[in-house]
């Protein structure tokens, strides 16, 4: 499986002025690669991730999944893409307050009506994140860093082809950052591509391919 990003342009109209959040971004994502994007605040990193996730439509350009534009898919096909092909770790806290940690992690599994033992896989991921003892807790009793780890576990439950991670270590101390990045590196080595936005120098080191975003323009660094 391959995801190609072609000449992606995103403009936001704000009154009479136009903000160019993305300017002709090209990127090909292949299995097992670990990409990182760094860049100033407001440079368009989140916008890129949102478009790849099919959450925002681009002004022009395409996101091709095995050659097919995801924005031409039906709602159920695009939902399935979000559910199973990719996993999302949003910049904001995106945990569901009414479900336990375990159920939050299991939820994407059941949204796609999969058969099988979701709890077993959820516990495996929670212990990978070092928080299996929090499984029965409600999210409102968790710290910011714990929530981030729940969200990462949730993004991995359907074994996605691509993990989109917007500041995955934003709330974490350097020790935990190291642990999480090590985990992500393992995930990548098992075949999941990772597209990570980060400000963290340490985290950036774990990626294999580095990009920088500058005023909507994506530039390969190494």
């Amino acid at each position, binding site marked *: 499986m391959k995801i190609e990003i072609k000449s992606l342009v995103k403009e936001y109209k704000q009154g009479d002025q136009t903000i160019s959040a993305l300017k002709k971004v090209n990127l090909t994502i292949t299995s097992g690669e670990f990409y990182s994007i760094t860049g100033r605040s407001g440079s368009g990193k989140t916008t890129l991730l949102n478009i790849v996730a099919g*959450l925002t439509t681009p002004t022009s350009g395409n996101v091709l999944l095995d050659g097919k534009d995801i924005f031409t898919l039906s709602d159920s096909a695009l939902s399935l893409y979000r559910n199973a092909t990719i996993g999302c770790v949003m910049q904001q806290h995106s*945990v569901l307050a009414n479900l336990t940690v375990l159920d939050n992690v299991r*939820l994407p599994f059941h949204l796609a009506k999969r058969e099988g033992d*979701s709890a077993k896989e959820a516990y495996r991921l929670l212990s990978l994140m070092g928080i299996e003892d929090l499984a029965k807790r409600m999210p409102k009793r968790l710290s910011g860093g714990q929530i981030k780890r729940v969200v990462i576990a949730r993004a991995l439950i359907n074994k996605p082809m691509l993990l989109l991670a917007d500041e995955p270590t934003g709330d974490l101390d350097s020790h935990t950052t190291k642990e999480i990045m090590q985990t992500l590196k393992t995930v990548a080595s098992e075949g999941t591509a990772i597209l990570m936005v980060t400000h963290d120098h340490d985290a950036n080191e774990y990626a294999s391919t580095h990009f920088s975003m500058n005023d909507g323009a994506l530039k390969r660094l190494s």
Partner: protein
Amino acid sequence: MRINNHKDTANKPLTTLRIAFNNLCGKPGRAVALVTIVAIMAFVLFGGAILSRGLDNGMRSLEARLGADIIIVPQDSEDDYESLIVDGEPTGFYLDMSVKDYISQMEGVGQVTSQFFLATLGGGSCCTASAQVIGIDYETDFVIMPWVSQLLNRNIGDGEVIVGSGVSINYDNTILLFDVLYPVAARLEHSSTGMDNTIYVSINTMRDMARDAQALGGFPYDVDIDRSVSAILVDVAPGYEINLVARVMRWDIPGISVVESYGIYTNVASGLRFITGVIGTISVVLGVTVIVVLFVLFSLTISGRKKEFAILRILGATRTKLAGIVLTEALDLSLLGAFLGCALSVLVVFPFGRHIGMQMGMPLLLPGVGDSLRLLAIALAVSVAVGPISSAYSAYKISRAETYATMREGE
């Protein structure tokens, strides 16, 4: 270890139903408020429907039991007669028997019978119950006998009594009336009319009883017991107009009031129409209000939950799934509310129905099991439907929301 411990409960699929249920549990205050609103509506709908039906039944029961077309009573006694027939208010008034003989000869008069009324001395030691005794002439009676013969397959013998369903009697099936103990031959079934508070005896027994009452001061001495009747009941001969016959009677005979049973019936019927109209109006107004209130509440809460639904979208929930969650939450709430409201209604209306009817001064005959179940099913269905109906727009709106935009709004 841990995985095995939790396996049973933790591995249930996260269906729409479970997600909706968890969301409701997450906001118990909101859930309780919405359930209460639906419960109130269900309570009023079912209670109102049962009462309306009960009044209608009572009306029919009264109509069937009035039996005669025209009733002649002493002048100015028609209100007392109506109270007796409708509410079972004990009374006594007397006419000379010659009036009956005269009426029997009149043109247009078919069957004629007479009744003799005597109020028991309630509260005294002489009588078991405070009730109305009616002596019926079973040779000519065409009003009470049809009911009695259904029960007994024979006439009332002298010295026997038949009691209405509301008359209290002794445990050994006897009743003490003016210091004489009478065997109770039968008890009539509940009719929600004055019949329920009436004791029927043969006219001979009635006269003896009146003499006993006279001795106890419960009957005036100036009434000639053997030559008196209280009410003369007339069936108009076929081909004659009831009100024409009644008019001739009023013209011809001094000192009487002529009651057309149709008049009693229409009096009660117009009161009934008013009450059922009020119940119907309240039900409709309340139903509409509840839908509007729920609509507003759902819209308000949904807009506060945009981020929650955006997260579900990001995780791969389809638009249909989001709408399904909103509708299921609403359905859960209205299901619970509908059942609670109807259950409460059943607990209030059935035990206290007779009391409510008495308070309203209306004949109220609660519907039977089958009819009640049918009304219950309708009330439940309407109340249950209210949740999904009033949340349909919210469900539609949330399923159309722009995910990325709502996620940013939640920041």
